[in-house]
């Protein structure tokens, strides 16, 4: 019985963590799908989003939820800028160059966050929330909102990808950039859009992460590997798989603390991921968008 309660409670925590991972993983997955490289600066885009949201709140005094749109705009613009300033020029080289470049970009973004906001720890709002109790299960109100926000963002993205030709154009681009150009697909516009979406999603993850924990310059970098694990698990390049991947990783990490020394917790994500990769090298979910 106790075990059951533990499992339920930890699963709830896992879903909250999973929502955050999912938003990050969808972005990673999309960028991989179009541009064919693992974007190592994605975590730091999350950080930027979270901090922009924070500054927006501080300057305007608006309620906490405004951090979300503000952060999304901030990170989308950052992503766009980074792409135009750097990635654009090396897009035609091998993906590994882009990967290393994105790693350098991660350093740049992180140090900018430090220069602008300093190394201290911030949070969006002081104080804590008392949980609602359902029998022995506790649910914190924020968690409901976080989950809701994640669902809304994913739904909006889904509509965008299926109701517009841009979604298909994105995949076409990821197949064959040259042919896309020849066909008249405005490749640059599609790429820019990808960065805008990816940046906005990253910021979504960052702001929600900030709401659930706190803001530090390394918050995004620290969560990057689980985000990758989620993307991989869902089958990288498949945004919808990322949702399942995020949830599985999130839950597995929380539930693992029941059985394992918690300092092994981050390893849980990796072990699951590696195991899945070995059994199913294409990720757990087949099928495309």
């Amino acid at each position, binding site marked *: 019985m106790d075990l059951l309660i533990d499992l339920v409670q930890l699963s709830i925590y896992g879903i909250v963590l999973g929502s955050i991972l999912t938003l990050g993983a969808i972005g990673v997955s999309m960028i991989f799908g179009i541009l064919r490289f693992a974007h190592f600066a994605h975590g730091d885009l999350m950080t930027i989003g979270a901090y922009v949201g924070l500054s927006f709140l501080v300057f305007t005094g608006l309620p906490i939820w405004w951090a979300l749109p503000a952060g999304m705009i901030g990170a989308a613009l950052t992503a766009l800028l980074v792409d135009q300033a750097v990635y654009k020029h090396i897009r035609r080289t091998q993906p590994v160059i882009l990967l290393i470049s994105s790693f350098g970009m991660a350093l740049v973004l992180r140090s900018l966050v430090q220069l602008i906001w300093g190394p201290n720890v911030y949070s969006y709002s002081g104080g804590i929330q008392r949980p609602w109790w359902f029998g022995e299960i506790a649910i914190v109100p924020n968690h409901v909102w976080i989950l809701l926000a994640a669902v809304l963002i994913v739904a909006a993205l889904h509509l965008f990808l299926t109701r517009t030709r841009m979604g298909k154009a994105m995949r076409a681009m990821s197949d064959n950039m040259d042919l896309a*150009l020849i066909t008249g697909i405005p490749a640059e516009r599609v790429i820019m859009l990808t960065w805008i979406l990816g940046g906005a999603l990253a910021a979504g993850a960052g702001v929600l992460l900030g709401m659930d924990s706190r803001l530090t310059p390394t918050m995004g970098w620290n969560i990057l590997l689980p985000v990758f694990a989620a993307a991989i698990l869902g089958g990288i390049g498949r945004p919808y798989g990322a949702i399942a991947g995020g949830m599985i990783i999130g839950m597995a990490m929380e539930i693992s603390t029941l059985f394992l020394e918690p300092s092994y917790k981050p390893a849980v994500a990796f072990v699951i991921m590696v195991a899945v990769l070995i059994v199913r090298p294409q990720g757990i979910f087949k099928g495309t968008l």
Partner: protein
Amino acid sequence: MSLLTATDIYGGYGGADILKGAGLRVETDEIVVIVGPNGAGKSTMMKAIFGLLRVRTGQVLYQGDDITNAKPEQMVRRGIAYVPQEKNVFPSLTVEENLEMGAFLMSRDIKPRLEKVYAVFPKLRDRRRQQAGLMSGGERQMVAMGRALMIDPKLLMLDEPTAGLSPLLIDETFERIKEIQALGIGVLMVEQNAKQALAIAHRGYVLATGTNRHEDTGPNLLANREVAEMFLGG
């Protein structure tokens, strides 16, 4: 005014020039064929015209406008469609999605266009949901042509459209090309099935090592002994 004229084109891939003064002309409702040995620069010439390769010197005119080194997107907007020799489909998209992508720049309803293409290549209708990357070599060639036709082009540029097609389809393709030309579309194509191609061509160019070797009407080139021996396989 010619539909397309390219004069004195020099250009290459960064190193030495591949094209060394080649040129050509396509009139509205004319089929023009480029033949020549492998590596002569035929595909390079197509790319240069379509703006995929920097033309170092020389000029490309389309309906009297200078389009030298214009962006591919511009070309498509002006009604030039190009089917490259290799990698000419989006492998992970379905057949129908490949065709849709062909009409990406056209904002109007694409259904009728799709129907038109399916009428030309009925097999594609049967396979509309199949991923293009999993199709046979010949089937892909159809997808690629279909994709190009989606924009209702005024000038259609085909790089070896019949490579890998069955004899029946080769003949059919050349028939289609004639039909397309009859609609008032200029066709510029590179071909290794040179005899059949020249047979339907109004004019032909023989390209070797980046320069024009011969230029004449199709039948004349076919009749030319030297051309036949050196370039058409006797």
